């Protein structure tokens, strides 16, 4: 497990979301997962998809339940809204309070980031309240189908097709913000703080990108599979 962190420290985020704490010594991935009550196969699947942009889980995919996946995705969302975003906001706030000559410009940065965080919240709210319940309902339905073979009741008017359509680019504003700070801001007093903000933005951007990829590559195909199954019965 420690080797994983050395290989890609961004995976620390993934571990946090699975509830894995540091201090695991030389224990293997399997061992650590077992101790934390996580299916190691699922953990590895997510870690791989997170680490390697080209990674595309195929057969293994079927083995994991939607509720497992949704649970992970929700934790990620929570982490963005409760930890990452406030952290960056806080840093910008400190920058503003320490700045003497360009307070106004930094205020702009703050309000721009505020806009981004609103956008992110809206996106997350939509997924938490519509997309995920839809996926869970579908799974629940499929399960009952296997047992009783009952004809399908009506699944709410949503589909993964719609999701793919709507799943917009969440990192555009972050990209802009980075460039604004790097290229167009007047020189600020505290370089170190500016660096911190930038490092955080880079890391958040990568994290959000990887997160979207996991949604698109792991959750979407799984749900589409179920949709096909159900429409086949109808």
């Amino acid at each position: 497990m420690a080797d994983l962190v050395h290989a890609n420290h961004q995976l620390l985020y993934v571990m946090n979301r699975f509830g894995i704490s540091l201090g695991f010594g030389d224990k293997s991935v399997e061992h650590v997962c077992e101790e934390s009550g996580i299916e190691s196969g699922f953990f590895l699947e997510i870690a791989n998809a997170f680490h390697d942009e080209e990674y595309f889980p195929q057969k293994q995919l079927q083995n994991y339940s939607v509720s497992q996946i949704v649970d992970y995705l929700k934790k990620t969302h929570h982490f963005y809204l409760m930890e990452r975003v406030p952290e960056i906001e806080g840093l910008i706030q400190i920058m503003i309070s320490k700045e003497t000559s360009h307070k106004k410009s930094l205020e702009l940065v703050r309000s721009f980031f505020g806009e981004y965080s609103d956008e992110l919240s809206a996106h997350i709210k939509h997924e938490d309240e519509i997309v995920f319940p839809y996926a869970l309902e579908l799974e629940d339905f499929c399960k009952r189908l296997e047992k009783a073979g009952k004809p399908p009741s009506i699944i709410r008017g949503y589909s993964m097709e719609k999701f793919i359509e709507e799943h917009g680019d969440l990192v555009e504003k972050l990209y802009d913000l980075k460039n604004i700070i790097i290229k167009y801001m007047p020189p600020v007093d505290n370089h170190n703080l500016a660096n911190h903000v930038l490092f955080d933005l880079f890391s958040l951007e990568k994290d959000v990108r990887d997160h979207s990829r996991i949604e698109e590559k792991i959750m979407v195909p799984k749900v589409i599979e179920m949709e096909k199954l159900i429409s086949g019965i109808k």
Partner: protein
Amino acid sequence: MPQFSVLICEGSYIVRKGLVKLLKETNKTLTVREAADVESFMSVLGYYEPDIIIINPDLFGSGNKLIRELPEKFRGRAIALSSEEKRENISLFPQTLLYSDSKSTILEKVRKVYGTVKGCRGANKMRGTVITEREKLIVRYIALGLTNREIAEKLFISTHTVVTHRKNITRKLGIKTVSGLTVYAILNNLINIEDINK
């Protein structure tokens, strides 16, 4: 160095990865998308617009219309990738990378094509990011919340031209969103904060 993007379509895993690595080695800001077959290539093109495409025409089969359309569609920006030189299907491409090419040859060929891409993009790349007076005016209007059509009417140009200007602005500044451009406009005194709230 502006961000520059390539889409590679090649069936051989080793060749594809090798090419990606080679290109990334020389340009860290490069974004590369890959496709192993025509189907995924087309689906990537559906949502992604690369500056340059590098494709192995063999993947398309002999009678495929696409392979004739692509060099046309991408004009100078399509490069063929081929295991051997004497192939008819590579003749439509302005440049061909061969499996046997050395590293420096490959880079030189890609650079040539990139040069034409940059050329037709026309910007003042060497002098850093400079947007023209016309573009500044458009940034100002965008920041003030005008639509493409309204900008077109004000400047007596077509909306199509406005869209082209916007693309150029986004590329030069590295800012994609309206609110990002607004911040840029304020920082560069193209507009005042008070103007926005009018």
